[in-house]
């Protein structure tokens, strides 16, 4: 079940990322588009910098929500693995 949800979330993230990437290519040209492919993090930042003029605010909110969910879920999994393996204390600084 979690695997299915994870796959759906990944696909949605990919779709919104590609939509923003297309906007990036159209607005900024080939080189910045290539930079966006190389680093989707740049595409994400560019999307937020230009969301109003490009009319992609909703898309950016969806993408941001997916990222936060992925990071929280990934962090919970990572911390449970680490604490069950070694009871590492440094993780308590972040949780």
């Amino acid at each position: 079940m979690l695997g299915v949800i994870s796959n759906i979330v990944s696909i949605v993230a990919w779709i919104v990322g590609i939509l923003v990437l297309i906007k990036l290519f159209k607005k900024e040209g080939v080189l910045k588009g290539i930079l966006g492919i190389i680093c989707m993090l740049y595409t994400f930042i560019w999307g937020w910098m230009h969301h109003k003029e490009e009319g992609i605010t909703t898309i950016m909110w969806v993408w941001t929500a997916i990222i936060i969910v992925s990071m929280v879920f990934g962090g919970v999994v990572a911390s449970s693995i680490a604490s069950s393996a070694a009871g590492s204390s440094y993780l308590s600084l972040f949780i």
Partner: protein
Amino acid sequence: MVKIFSPVLAPIIRSRWEALAISVAAVLHVALITVGLPGWQCPIKAVTGVPCPGCFLGTAISLLLKGKLQQSLGMHAFAPIVVLGVGFIGVASLLPDTVRLSVVQKTAEIERRTGITAIILFGLLFYWSLRLFWFGFG
């Protein structure tokens, strides 16, 4: 030719907030990876299973900053170049407006004359395709 050599770095550092956001995001991503927490998850790799040209850069930079140069280059050969690029963007974002705009102009001129950014970006794509079809990743 003019379009291929169009500036990429200069427009980024022209906007202080964009430059600051990029450098902070990059530092945060590398910091998260360094402490073993999940950083930015590549949507391309998540869906297709194929690493994008920028995959493994965060880990490579983390290794580079720990002094493990050989391991870093083995993970991703462009790590040092990206560190320089992001460092340049970060420093430029903190400069006073007059100085930053002067740096923007000089950067744009260098990028137009030499095509250095285009060379690096296309080089990165070529490197990625070599790894994809011949040498593997990681």
